[in-house]
């Protein structure tokens, strides 16, 4: 984890976001300055159809605390 000076444990969430909806929505959240925990990390996918269960297992395997697929 590269976050410094964090005393509090925060779960690491990996988000797989479809470029056309969820990724755009995350941009919209930014435009509206909606705050959410910084430990959320977004990976852009061309479409949720691209998702392979392997990616989810891989994320858990490597220490992700949660995975969100959204599209």
């Amino acid at each position, binding site marked *: 984890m590269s976050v410094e000076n964090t005393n509090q444990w925060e779960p690491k969430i990996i988000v797989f976001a479809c470029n056309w909806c969820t990724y755009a929505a995350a941009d919209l959240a930014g435009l509206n300055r909606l705050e959410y925990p910084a430990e959320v*990390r977004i*990976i852009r996918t*061309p*479409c949720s*159809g*691209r998702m392979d269960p392997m990616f989810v297992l*891989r*994320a858990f395997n490597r*220490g992700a605390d949660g995975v969100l697929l959204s599209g």
Partner: protein
Amino acid sequence: MVAVAQHPNIELITYAEVTAVNGYIGNFTVTIKKKAKYVDWDVCTGCGTCEEKCPTKKLKNEFDLGLGQRTAIHKLFPQAVPGKPYIDAENCLKLTKDKCGICEKICPTEAIRFNDRDEYITEEIGAIVIATGYDLFPWEKAYGEYGYGKYPDVITSLQFERLVSSGGPTGGKIKRPSDNKEPQSVAFIKCVGSRDDAKGKSYCSRACCMYTAKHAFQVKEKMPDSEAYVFYMDVRTAGKNYEEFYQRSVNAGARYIRGRVSKIYPRGDKLVLKSEDTLLGRPIEVEADLVVLATAMVPSEGAEELAKTIGFSTDKDGFYQEAHPKLQPVDTFAAGVYLAGCCQGPKDIPDTVAQASAAAVKVCGVFSKAELPTEPMVSEVNTEKCSGCGFCVPICPYKAISLEEIQERGHHGTITRKAARINSSLCQGCGACVPACRTQALNLKGYTDEQLVAEVDALCL
């Protein structure tokens, strides 16, 4: 209409259907079936003599929705474009029983062709606009309380349009179908089939509030002494000058009653409508001579097959699915195929015209380029790994994958087997095929398994 027929850039093919669409944006091959008309339109002048002399005169006129009559050889309506007649093969004496043939004898230009057959032509096309419109919800099958269609004086709004139209069967005089009398009171029922989960469709058909306001206004305008009742759930007038138009109708004397009509039954030569006035909170009974149902719009017959032919999807109600409800309202998931009008969802004329112009701009946008660049982030097949199972073919929403025969060198000479092939012009790079591939023969360029796994690893560790 005439402007379309006269435009030098428009080739009009009527009485025809699109039966096959192959290819992709910029390069479609379209097969069109020209149905047999039994009249050579190149020769016919549209003089109308055949219609006058045709002995089969008492056929239901579909254009007037059964309110008028027509002959077997006929123009769709007097102002038809092109203004040429065709023969209704099912009812023509010559074509069914080999009798008559009068039209052939009297036609001054010898345009009748009893041996005409359906003809198939193909066209090379770069982009497609679909504007197949709507049909009316078959209320006769669903609404027993309105008589299942057994009362002749319960009609649809579209039939009412024919009654008020000067080109219609009554020359624009409002007469009720049962006895041709001028109705003293006309009742309109809105949302028949619309906003009715139980018997009809869940959606609002959008145009009905306004055309019913127009109809009520026309009743008061043409017959000032008559009554116009409008039974409604809500009055929705979201549009420029729409609310004003509705108020004009109310000011002209249209009586709006908030409530659903629960029953229509005859009393003498009148029809009784039972309802509740929900604003007063009490039952109400209205006697009317004519009842007009604002029937829901549904996708036109054959819309679903056309979607399958071209290769894009329909929504839960059978309307064509736009690529994005807000940002791509005229695009479909098939590149180069655009939507206009009610085939995409119920709408009124201003919205339809706006969407049609938007679709036209999309087409012109495609045509404005010398060549179309293709997105390089598309799927690719490793033919060596592909087992030819074909599992990916139905997964692809863009019909971009096909199974093709390939030849390989084996131990005992050349082997012919099947393998997936990607048409990179059709592929939109969604990658849905990749996880579906059991042998990992497919990968999406720019978003390969390796790349995505590398991203996961970099974030997690």
